[in-house]
């Protein structure tokens, strides 16, 4: 027979053990999420629910993006570039015009693609539903989604055939809109402004180096590159050139940028045959 004290100690222990999940749950009350926890995302015929992404966010994302989505997770001091502050609702990779919110599909694609040259890996291991839920979760951090609608995705005209003339025209565009000031005349991220660049939060930021084999953050297809300089990378010094470059010229620029990249390409081969020289920063066309 157990003594009375043994029974009490067993009962007390069991009660404390059963209360553990409740005690642990109380730690999560610091999240300020209640008001927008009903946020949804819509990816094709999949509907994402913010509340269903809580566990995945905690497991995979919180260390960088923080419990409040402000980018102030534990890894914040150690990673460069810094994690995205979701509360601001400002995103680099969009199909929408500069200054507008991205579409759900934009965020969905970014999660799977990851962001090269950052600590954001490719989260291609999620199911589509899990990713859609995470998109809703990301959105729920910012009140922008309550008050604004995502922008209308820009129209990307069909890609024309690459020609030597187009590559040369692309070089002219590269000179005229002064891409070289940041990216350098050979795309090596060593332009005269490169060392001075800061993002919107005043943090140093490096321009993209086309020559070192890196993948552009927001996708590496020709359409992705077109989209990047026509929408800009919000929050960074990379502006939108939608008002400065006509669609046809934008394709020319895409072809010219391909000549810098280390990957084999038709453009690179053509540039070699043309013996194309880098733009001259001192030429009048580059100083306008």
């Amino acid at each position, binding site marked *: 027979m157990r003594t009375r004290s043994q029974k009490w*100690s067993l009962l007390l222990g069991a009660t*404390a053990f059963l209360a553990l999940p409740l005690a642990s749950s109380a730690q999560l009350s610091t999240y300020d999420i209640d008001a927008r926890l009903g946020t949804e995302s819509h990816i094709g015929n999949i509907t994402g629910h913010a509340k269903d992404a809580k566990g995945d966010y905690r497991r995979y994302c919180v260390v960088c993006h923080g419990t409040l989505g402000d980018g102030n997770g534990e890894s914040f001091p150690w990673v460069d570039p810094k994690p995205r502050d979701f509360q601001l609702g400002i995103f680099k990779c969009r199909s929408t015009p500069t200054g507008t919110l991205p579409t759900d599909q934009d965020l969905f694609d970014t999660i799977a693609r990851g962001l090269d*040259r950052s600590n954001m890996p490719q989260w*291609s291991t999620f199911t589509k539903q899990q990713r859609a839920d995470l998109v809703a979760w990301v959105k729920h951090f910012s009140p922008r989604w309550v008050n604004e609608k995502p922008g209308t995705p820009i129209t990307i005209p069909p890609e024309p055939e690459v020609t030597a003339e187009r590559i040369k025209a692309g070089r002219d565009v590269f000179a005229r809109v002064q891409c070289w000031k940041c990216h350098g005349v050979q795309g090596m991220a060593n332009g005269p402004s490169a060392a001075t660049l800061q993002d919107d939060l005043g943090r140093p930021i490096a321009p993209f180096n086309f020559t070192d084999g890196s993948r552009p953050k927001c996708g590496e297809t020709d359409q992705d590159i077109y989209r990047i300089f026509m929408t800009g990378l919000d929050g960074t010094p990379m502006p939108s050139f939608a008002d400065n470059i006509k669609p046809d010229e934008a394709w020319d620029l895409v072809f010219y940028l391909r000549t810098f990249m280390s990957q084999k390409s038709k453009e690179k081969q053509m540039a070699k045959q043309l013996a194309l020289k880098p733009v001259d920063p001192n030429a009048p066309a580059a100083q306008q």
Partner: protein
Amino acid sequence: MRFSRHLQIRNLIHPATSLSALLLILISIVMTCSQPANALPAFARKYGLRCSACHESWPMLNYFGQKFKDNGYQLMNDRDSPIWQNPGYWPVTFRIIPIWHRVSTGKVAVDTYSSGNPLPTGSAIQRITTSGFDLSGLDFHTGGTLEKNFSFYVLPSSDNTASFHFETVMARLDNLFGSPWFNVKLGKFELDNLLSEKRILTLTGNGGIYQLYHFSPLTAAGVPDGNVWGKMGDNQLGLEVMGHSWNDRTRYSVALLSTNDGTPGLPYGNAYTGFFAASQAFDAGKAGVQRVGFYAMVGQAPTTWLTSGGPNGVIGGSGAGNKSFSREGFVGQFYFGQHIDLQVVTQHGQDNAWFGQGFGDLVDGVASGNNTVGTVLPAGSQSPSWNGVLLEPHYVYSPQLIFIGRFETIRMSQQASPGMASNFGNISTYTIGYRYNPFMTPRAGFAWHNEYNWLHQDGTGPIPGTNINTSELLLGFDFDF
């Protein structure tokens, strides 16, 4: 005898009751006061990810961690090259586990003594129960990338007396020809078991291994058969080619291994084993990514040995007279949302009749027959075969707290000798436990681990036809730095 056993168990229950209550309260306090996990252990500190990104619960990998491993410990971004690291960075982790455990083994044959007589006067069957503080062995893990797409892993490991061996030593060429479908690994490494024993979540003597990965049938004499090489859970020496789709949904692995159970020095003979595994994962919406696959291990091992100076003078490396063995089965990893999953492994195993009669390994000193000229098998000898299943459910309350269950059973389908009881050597075992990480620092992992295992084997008691039960309760701190 029966009475005395009851007395013994009753005496254990009373202090154990108080101890359990105290431990439960202590755990409750620790858990209630703890902070959310913030961790960057091992590889994670290279990439700035918390350990839960790759581990369902350390050390067991989740899908993202499996993909990272399959890519040669790379995230496949520009941070993979060691040049990103501070020159002082070196990816070394050590792991050792101080524990308290209580082991209880039933039906041990013990000598009995009569008063005043120093020599045994008889024998009896008794349960032996031992408890106390103890240590696990020590592991030094180091691995990572030497350069983009060149990776390595070295793991010197000791037992709890600090006797070291090399558990893993391998280098890997990743993404050959720019394709994730072609990666080559050379050295001593873990076989591509989806449910990895090296990342097992349990720690007890019986529960800390997968019985299915080490099973050997018993001979009529009650000793294991002579095949010591068909152990899928042991790291093996060889060459592996593995590949996977870009998102790791589809995986395959083909390995050619020396039949030596990972023992260096060519101690056995010219025998090889093949291991093949493949799996396919598919989306199941909110349930998560499900995976099903299969594996097969097919090999040959020696039964004949050259000797020098008599039967005991076995010449290492002289093994011949190779006979075959095989292990094959299905694997499933099923997820039911973010909290519950079930890992399943099945196995059908078979050893050649020679192994079933105890022929095989002579090198390690185990008494065994030598298949020399003129040796014949006992009449009626047949290839022992068996079927087994392993079910391991988890409840992941949070990345910091996981509850573990496991049930394994192995049933003989054909004994080595016709006269043996059909259930002789059958094993059933279950394990329950939990691991709780009260905190994680950016450089280390720490878990409070509590586990209970019970193992039952048919027919192997000292009295013929009786069964053996063994149980173990374990509490410990599992930490790595």
